[in-house]
């Protein structure tokens, strides 16, 4: 199902009417709404999380701090904010793969990844990934061997999870900035590996 697509004039009219009334009542400033939208469209996004991951790959001391206290370690790089006040980073390792969901609503680490994609908010993902993660991951293109344990982190409180993917092989010569470009949003949610160009879809 294509979650989030609603080409419905009635919804547009409903929202315009609502905003106009709230502006008239002095509760909303449309310029502020513009600025909030701009911020979430431009200033935050997966590039933030990718910078964290690349730093962890090149700096073992940073990685240790990141896994011990994610909130403090991402704050070192300037990341905090709504849906990011309590951050925990979970590491993929040989034999262990992590994936993140919020089955009860759509909690997501906004400060590190921006706003969540439609599929993350979809009933299909929320209902199924806790129950059949292997099948869901295979469906979106990540086939994991049966020997790999899959850990599904269901974000049921105010802790927001970020997956630290495994560093791709043969990347020894790359700079931190080049490494960051190998880290997709989906790899940090846990539905892809880092470094797979097919996974660079958002």
């Amino acid at each position, binding site marked *: 199902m294509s979650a989030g697509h609603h080409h419905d004039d009635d919804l547009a*009219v409903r929202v315009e009417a609502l905003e106009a009334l*709230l502006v008239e009542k002095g*509760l909303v400033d449309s310029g502020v709404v513009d600025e909030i939208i701009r911020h979430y469209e431009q200033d935050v996004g997966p590039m933030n999380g990718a910078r964290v991951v690349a730093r962890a790959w090149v700096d073992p001391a940073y990685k240790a701090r990141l896994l011990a206290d994610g909130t403090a370690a991402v704050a070192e790089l300037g990341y905090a*904010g709504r849906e990011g006040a309590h951050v925990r980073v979970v590491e993929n390792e040989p034999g262990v793969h992590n994936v993140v969901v919020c089955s009860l609503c759509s909690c997501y680490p906004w400060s590190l990844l921006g706003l969540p994609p439609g599929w993350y908010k979809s009933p299909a993902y929320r209902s199924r990934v806790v129950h059949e993660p292997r099948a869901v991951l295979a469906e979106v293109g990540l086939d994991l061997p049966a020997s790999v344990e899959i850990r599904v982190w269901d974000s049921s409180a105010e802790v927001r999870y970020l997956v630290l993917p495994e560093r791709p092989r043969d990347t020894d010569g790359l700079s931190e900035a080049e490494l960051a470009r190998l880290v997709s949003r989906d790899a940090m949610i846990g539905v892809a590996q880092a470094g797979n160009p097919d996974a660079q879809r958002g």
Partner: protein
Amino acid sequence: MNGIHDMGGLHGFGRVEVETNEPVFHERWEARVFGIVQSLGGANIDAGRHSIERLDPVTYLRNGYYGRWLAALERTLRDVGILSDEELRARKRRRRRAGKAVRPPTTPASAWKPSPGIDYARRVERPALFRDGQTVRTRNHQPPGHTRLPAYARCRRGTILHRHAAMVYPDDHAHGRGENPQYLYTVRFDGRELWGDAAEPGTVVLLDLFEPYLEPA
């Protein structure tokens, strides 16, 4: 509450469809709803989530994520007496007669700054009831109001993986009963414990659960 929002383990929603090059917002109305809700503050995230859970299931599912936000916002504004249905209807009629949107006046310089985030951790004096590595069982906790214990994880055995700080307790905070902070634990559940014969081998689920949801196993 036992509602449609509590989706973990439900059948029938089909495949996970991934859109390539997805925009942050698909429609401008979605962006406006998001911005309006953020600008209004939403200091009580628990009450906000509960306002969405209380939508009837058809409304919850009908217009996607931001459709839910919109319906919950309209309902909340009506419940607290800020906007009446009649005001909204009249405004929509006016908008349709006008034929195109009339943008309300804005103040030129935006005073908005990104929020530093809301810290939900609180100090409590009492000792924690559970320790890392301990086996616990989730309670058969199904209040009619807000809770963050998913239905699929009720009455299940798990292991405490990690104790967080005490945090604001959503079951009370959502209903104006204060913050009542409670210790929060990451609890690890084996897939078989949650899903029985239907579990995929080698899968575990980790949930962040508040102390009142748990009892010694």
